[in-house]
């Protein structure tokens, strides 16, 4: 067993884990944060995307133990209380989800794309940057619209500066 201590959605968490525990399983099973989903076994689909120290990663391709001392944000940590994150609002506004299974990973990826590319990220960049997130329902059109809108509203909410997920 390995001792682990890290921050998840702003709260300090300490646990004793089997070292082979993937971050996604730690989140889902140990912390009961089931918003991060498992959609594949080749680390391609992106349904497990979370933020690790401010960057998007696939939680199925990270050992929880490697996150010692790290700062993890999941879909459950994006909203501030009942106030949704601008990207979450944008997904609802643009009907960027249907079955919802890829959605948490898609939203986390979207926030990360905007963090890195800024308010005026263009469609072609968004589509390329979504290479690690597969959706079977939406055909991506509305997801791209949502991320374009999320980009604009994230920036205006913070007066033009980058927002890291809280």
């Amino acid at each position, binding site marked *: 067993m390995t001792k682990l201590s890290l921050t998840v959605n702003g709260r300090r968490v300490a646990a004793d884990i089997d070292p082979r525990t993937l971050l996604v399983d730690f989140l889902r099973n140990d912390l009961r944060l089931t918003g991060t989903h498992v*959609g594949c076994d080749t680390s391609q689909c992106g349904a497990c995307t979370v933020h690790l120290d401010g960057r998007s990663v696939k939680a199925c391709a990270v050992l929880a133990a490697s996150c010692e001392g790290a700062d993890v944000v999941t879909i459950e940590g994006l909203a501030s209380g009942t106030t949704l994150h601008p990207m979450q609002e944008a997904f609802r506004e643009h009907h960027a989800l249907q079955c919802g299974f890829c959605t948490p990973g898609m939203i986390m990826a979207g926030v990360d794309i905007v963090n890195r590319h800024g308010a005026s990220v263009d469609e072609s960049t968004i*589509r390329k940057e979504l290479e690690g997130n597969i959706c079977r329902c939406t*055909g991506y059109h509305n997801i791209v619209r949502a991320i374009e809108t999320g980009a604009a509203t994230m920036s205006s909410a913070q007066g033009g500066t980058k927002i890291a997920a809280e």
Partner: protein
Amino acid sequence: MTDQGIGASVKRKEDLRFITGKGQYVDDINRHGQTYAVFARSPVAHATINNIDVSEALASPGVLGVYTGADLAADKIGGLICGWMIHSKDGSPMKAGAHPALAQGKVRYVGDHVAVVIAETLDQAKDAAALIQVDYGELPAVVDVATAQAAGKAQIHDEAPGNTVYQWHLGDKDAVDAAFSNAAHVTKLDITNNRLVPNAMEPRAAIGDYDAGQDQFTLYTTSQNPHVARLVLSAFIGIAPEHKLRVIAPDVGGGFGSKIFIYAEETVCIWAAKKIGRPVKWVAERTEAFLADAHGRDHVTTAELALDASGKILALRANTKANLGAYLSTFASSVPTYLYAPLLSGQYDIPAIYCEVDGVYTTTTPVDAYRGAGRPEATFVVERLLEVAARQTGRDPAEFRRMNFIKSFPHQTPVIMAYDAGNYGASLDKALEMADYKGLAARKAASAKAGKLRGLGFSAYIEACGIAPSRAVGSLGAGVGLWESAEIRVNPVGTIEVLTGSHSHGQGHETTFAQVIASKLGVPIDQVSIVHGDTDKVQMGMGTYGSRSGAVGASAIVKAAEKIVAKGKRVAAACMEVPEDSVDFENGEFLGRGTNKKMTFGEVALQAYVAHKFDPEVIEPGLKEGSFYDPKNFTFPSGVHIAEVEIDPDTGHTRIDRWTAVDDFGILINPMIVEGQVHGGIAQGVGQAMLEHTVYDENGQLITGSLMDYAMPRADDLPSYNVAMTTTPCPSNPLGVKGCGEAGAIAAPPAVINAITDALGHEDIAMPATPQAVWRAVQKMPRKMAAE
């Protein structure tokens, strides 16, 4: 209520839980004391099972049980069923072999379920599963549908000689033969409709739970139709009587047909829960899903179109071999027969059609419905024939289609379907304009100047959905009726629960069904809950597939709402002391005609339950009404999609430059949601046409068995879509809706292939038109047509 009612693009109510990570998918659910199941699957495509030794597995740490087909048989558990009887041309019933939930005697495809291990942890179950020893007597694999019936091929099921399940036909052979012999021109194509792996993003999962105190089973399952699952598990598989079996399909992450069927894994989980005495949970891994989920499509067809000298179509004939896989899945027999051939008229006035279909066993994963289910296969045949015929006779593909369109309705096709309403010319006109068809030549020239090849392809599709009138499908062999149910429970304070037999796994019913209530009863959507997916809550339903939830599911709600209004009027009349037939209902209010008396819906609801103002011998208290709605006809969405592509001849990479979709879905309940369905369908159709390739080797091993080799469309494979609607209301249901869930997947593949062949100046290219395939086609182009 116009901003919340039918026709409004209301944002979805269900989104909140999904965008905050609070959805409840089956894998998110954990039952106290649950155990974990792992299935041992056959590594070979075809073999006798000579012996299974589970002793090492049983002794493995944490293992609570290891079961095989023999254990199921000892408990008299029945096999998995196919619910649609198809008769061959000679009148004989289809020849189907048994489909046990755990293999008995033989395995018939790589992935066939042989045994199950149930242990305290998932890793322990996996470790133990690897210790199961099976002595297989290998037999030759039979992989290719085109050759599976040949003499000398291994027999997969004793019941089906020549691996032939049925030899079916539809139409008038003599009339077609006569037409062809008089034709001025015949176009002939060999067409393969490539096998697809559905890959909904949520892998299938099940939790079986048994309460010994109540002798009650509960199954959580990723199902599109929990009541059908309960019916089959109870009546045919024999798990428990229906009243002792609750099936819950909570949030489900996509289905596309693959989650309709009743599979081995959920059957074993629910049965094993009683054996083990604890809940049993199974979740598919993705590579497991590639083997274990029903696949789609897989037809090999020879098709011909006969034209007269003026270009009018005289006849169409098709001969199809349909791969059903190693066992018949729940609806498998119907997909290449009654969901396919009756669509071979397309949008065209074709006097004579004849279609023969052989349903064939192979040692591959079972094949069943997948988004479109038979209609993409038919549309591909028709739209490729039309396209090639146009080219061969020097006609513009748009005008050639237009001259053959059906122009008056209702129209009886030669293949059962009677199209009720449509305006195909309007869709074509709008699509041509949106796609800037006139500018194509200039765009082609510009692409050529940049060293690229540009092409444009049409797909004028029609499909039959809103499945289905029960007597009609019953007469065609269906074992079930295809009505839908709705129960409207009005609460005393005027809020509403709608219990629907439909199931939402992406379709947004919690919103669209509430919009129907808002329109019909005037109750705001935030006061309406849509309840679905639990057989303890909703009495009975047939589920969601076949683009039926609008046409059939919502129509049931309308009928129930009519009954609510009728009763409400009686209660209101009593309360307002006016004659019963003098009450009108408008904008959520009951009005005494000719008086200034009125009551709100909420006031009437309260009075219905308080029951102080009417005689209970005359009017029962309460305000709750249900309806089982059986559609009068299939519905017939139709439209025109236009794809424009640009090919890089150096690499064969094909970029979709623009996509135009003009669809007629009749009345739209929520245009935003309808467009989303079109987007998603197009993406799957593009996937079939360009990316998705399910390849078996000659030993029946699935080579493209993971996302590393099976190319799912990503955002950068697709463009944004230009989507518009035309409207001819559906005359056969109260809402006038046709349904929209599958249209994109039906329309898209021929549009793509027609565009690529246009770019290449070729007649044909097989699906998927991968970069390699396109590059090879480029190499065959005349030198001057290929890039400089």
